[in-house]
């Protein structure tokens, strides 16, 4: 095993964890009671996936760390999730637009990871693809309904897409970690994922009577531990107990 293999799995785990943590913020505060339930359900899938991936990352690292060590006692400079995952939840349009962009990304990613040369990753992907198919159907439906709903919801959905568009290119960057994983047939080529993703997103945005935003900048850094200011606050909440009472059982 190599450091790159560890980082590849860690990044997948961090994406699941940080997005899952954001999703739980809707618990008890959703616009509909049905959404309290559905959102918690999807968040639970993300937390469950984070546990599998971070446990596996810890195993690959071989330093005796656990899923909880990775989740609760790393600093923000050591987290390697996409910036898109950590952005504050915003309104329901922002939340569902982000879910849709990331669900579609994960759908194509896990479809490929099913046939990964890494058997553990392949097993995790087989489980994740079932959940993700459901997540994507659901978030896509929300993009359509809010996009093609009232004038206000249309406007909010368009603003949401504009607000997160600069963060989407980060999903498809290719650094030495990716290059090695492609070479070892562990993971797919991000460029290939990009074309699949773009086609789906464009079709949905059109069907939702919205327009594909223009990309002004490409904002990235998350995968190298350079985060937005929101990240530190997310971690200070999430890590509060483990930081206050180090080394205890819970």
């Amino acid at each position, binding site marked *: 095993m190599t450091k790159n293999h560890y980082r590849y799995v860690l990044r997948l785990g961090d994406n699941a964890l940080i997005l899952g943590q954001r999703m739980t913020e809707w618990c008890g505060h959703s616009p509909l*009671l049905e959404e309290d339930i559905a959102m918690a359900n999807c968040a639970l899938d993300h937390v469950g996936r984070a546990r599998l991936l971070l446990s596996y990352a810890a195993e690959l690292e071989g330093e005796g760390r656990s899923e909880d060590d990775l989740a609760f006692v790393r600093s923000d400079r050591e987290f390697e999730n996409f910036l898109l995952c950590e952005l504050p939840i915003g309104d329901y349009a922002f939340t569902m637009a982000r879910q849709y962009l990331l669900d579609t990304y994960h759908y194509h990613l896990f479809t490929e990871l099913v046939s990964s040369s890494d058997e553990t990753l392949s097993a995790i992907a087989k489980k994740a693809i079932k959940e993700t198919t459901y997540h994507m159907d659901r978030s896509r439906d929300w993009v359509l309904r809010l996009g093609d709903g009232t004038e206000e919801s249309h406007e909010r959905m368009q603003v949401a897409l504009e607000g997160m568009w600069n963060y989407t290119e980060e999903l498809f960057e290719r650094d030495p970690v990716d290059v090695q994983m492609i070479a070892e047939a562990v993971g797919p080529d991000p460029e290939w994922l990009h074309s699949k993703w773009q086609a789906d997103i464009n079709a949905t945005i059109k069907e939702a009577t919205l327009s594909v935003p223009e990309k002004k900048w490409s904002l990235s850094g998350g995968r190298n531990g350079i985060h937005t200011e929101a990240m530190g606050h997310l971690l200070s909440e999430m890590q509060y107990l483990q930081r206050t009472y180090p080394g205890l059982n819970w």
Partner: protein
Amino acid sequence: MVDVMSFTDEQCQFDAIIEAEEKIEPRDWMPEKYRLNLVRQMSQHAHSEVVGQLPEGNWIGRAPTLRRKAILLAKVQDEAGHGLYLYSAAETLGVSREEMMNDLLIGKAKYASIFNYPTLTWADVGAIGWLVDGAAIVNQISLCRTSYGPYARAMVKICKEESFHMRQGYEIMQVLAEGAAAQKAMAQDALNRWWWPTLMMFGPHDSESANSQQSMKWKIKRQSNDELRQKFVDQTVKQADHLGLAIPDQDLKWNEERGHYDFGPIDWEEFARVVKGGGLCNDARLEARRKANNEGQWVKDALMAYAEKHSRSDVDQVA
């Protein structure tokens, strides 16, 4: 004349169903007061499930391990599900969920007053599962035999999930009680704060509760407030002993003659104050529900507009 006859017939039939321990179903005739009593109780129960997401929800983001985060999330999700079953069951009585929600938001309908207490530490999450869900189970097991069919069936379904809720809470307390000194102190502090409000959950003493006597006659309620409270105390004392935590009541002792634990007087003034709005979290809880409702309005409008547009375009296509 005919009306009076048929009314009497209906009343007799209703009484006979109750007497025979059978269930009243939505299509059956029922006295208006029976219906209203049920609407009040069932909607209050539903509101409690929904508002009950908030105190524990306050700790999902700060759960100490990923396993605990997942368990707590699943638990809070269940509570929202209970709210949904109960609103649906109450809707069979001819009130809409929207009307019931509205009564909650304007402060006309109540919810379990226990949720007006703050969750200050992680141990509070344990204490709520152990004590508050524990008390809810005692109450809800009794309600599985309530006379209104849809309510009884909702209770059976809900009770199946509640034992997991209590177990996860007890397990949190167990780990803390066996943990470091700071954790044990946290567990004891949570028990100290949640014990008395939990006893208040069963409502006023039987001698003070007019509502509840009529409910017993109609078999909406099957056991009195004091009976249920006693049952809860009896089962919980042993659990606290097992945890090595002290229940904050100097008068608590086994009464051989009664075959029950005696316990000290409940502070009914505090109960009344919190029910009326004077708890630390009354404003915050209602505000959170109002905010969800108001900010959700544009979402609901969008769903309706979308549904309307798309049913119309289906018709256009057919034409």
